[in-house]
């Protein structure tokens, strides 16, 4: 039985892609735009990097293809959605990051011990 923890830690690209797909089903270009917005335009994925990561997530079963919505004009576009395992992995990764963040905050709040 595969556990979500087996996929951790996620790479920054995978994390951003899963985060983008957690909001909605998207095609590749939309994922790129979503990642750009998530990072405050500091991180932009290229098509090569995106599909390299998407291919890996698809093969791991974290992402799956979705039906294109009605009225989609561009036949080349494929839509992707988060698979149930992908959602669990994302939750696990976010929990891990929260723990790290809490730990970091706690260590920052503690006053430093001065050497004698």
């Amino acid at each position, binding site marked *: 039985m595969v556990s979500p923890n087996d996929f951790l830690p996620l790479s920054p690209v995978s994390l951003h892609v899963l985060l983008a797909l957690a909001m909605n089903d998207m095609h590749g270009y939309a994922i790129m735009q979503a990642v750009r917005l998530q990072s405050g335009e500091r991180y932009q994925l290229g098509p*090569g990097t995106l599909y390299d990561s998407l291919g890996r997530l698809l093969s791991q079963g974290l992402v799956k293809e979705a039906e294109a919505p009605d009225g989609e004009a561009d036949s080349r576009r494929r839509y992707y959605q988060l698979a149930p395992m992908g959602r669990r992995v994302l939750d696990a990764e976010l929990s891990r990051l929260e723990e790290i963040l809490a730990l970091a905050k706690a260590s920052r709040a503690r006053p430093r011990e001065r050497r004698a």
Partner: protein
Amino acid sequence: MLRRCYIWLICQHPPEFRRRFAAEMLGIYDQMHGRRGWLFFDAARSVLRQHLTQQRPPEPALASADGAPRFQTIAPYSLAWSTMMEGGIITVALLCLLAYAGTHGSRRLPFLIGSYHGPGFLHVTDVSNTASGLDTRVVMPEEKADPIRDAARAYFGSLLLLRALDADGNLVLSSWEILTAPSALRKLDTNRDGQLSAEECGFTASTGLDQRLVAYGRETFMTTNPVLRVLDADHDGTISGTEMLTATPSLRSLDRNVDGKLSASEVLPDPDLVWAVLESAAILEAVDTDGDAGITATERLSPRAARYREIIVAADRDHNGITTRTEVTAELRLRRERQRQQEAAEQVLGNSGPTKQPSF
């Protein structure tokens, strides 16, 4: 054009990736305007990553019919794509480095074809290097006019003995060629009599000529050519076996600048001597009526000798009443030398003295 390049880059991805994402990547490329360089870089990086991280499935296991354990190989036998890509990248990088070093380096790499620009080689101009057409222009270096070299080329070509001695044909007798002169001379001995006649050294005379003239020509040939003159130490008109054996020290006696080799200027005959020999031959031909190679007192008084009498009398240094051809030649050379000295003195005086005003 750029779109085609991008399609080419997409095609470099592994087939499975290409089948799945090629259309989408191209769709994104069409949607994005600008940042083409970044897109190309991203695609190239993706190609590399795909090939380097691609895992090949193991070879299928061999089925066993008798229930024996089955084996399978994990490592593929054929070359992996990633290995070939790495090799290709390293090769291209090395070639680029060599090309850059060859064209931008301060010193040209001597092992690269076409990089040598030393003297003596045809120089292909940079203009023709950069030209796109096939009309390459080759500039031949201008050959400096060298009268001595031209004369030497003609002289070495005409004299059989010199051609034999100058084995490499560079118009210079090197120390090695001087050292091996005896063996080179022996090869000229075509009649195997152990000595070299004037004919074997390269003298030729037209058939039907007066034998007296031929004999005189033979003697002149052996005396006016410096190499023959020193080789024929006893001046008997032939180079004997002993003279052939001692050819090396004989030839070295011509080395005026003691550089161990004989250059053209050291081998070429003295023009004054040639002139004197030819002139004395003409005088004797006119005056020596009995053909004994000497001008007697009677012959001096003949009307034919009137023109040369003063020279003939002055040439008779031993005052025996007979002027030989050798004496005439020596006298003519002496006069030519005096004339040159006088001309040189006049030139010096003319340059240092007061400038003559032109008379009107």
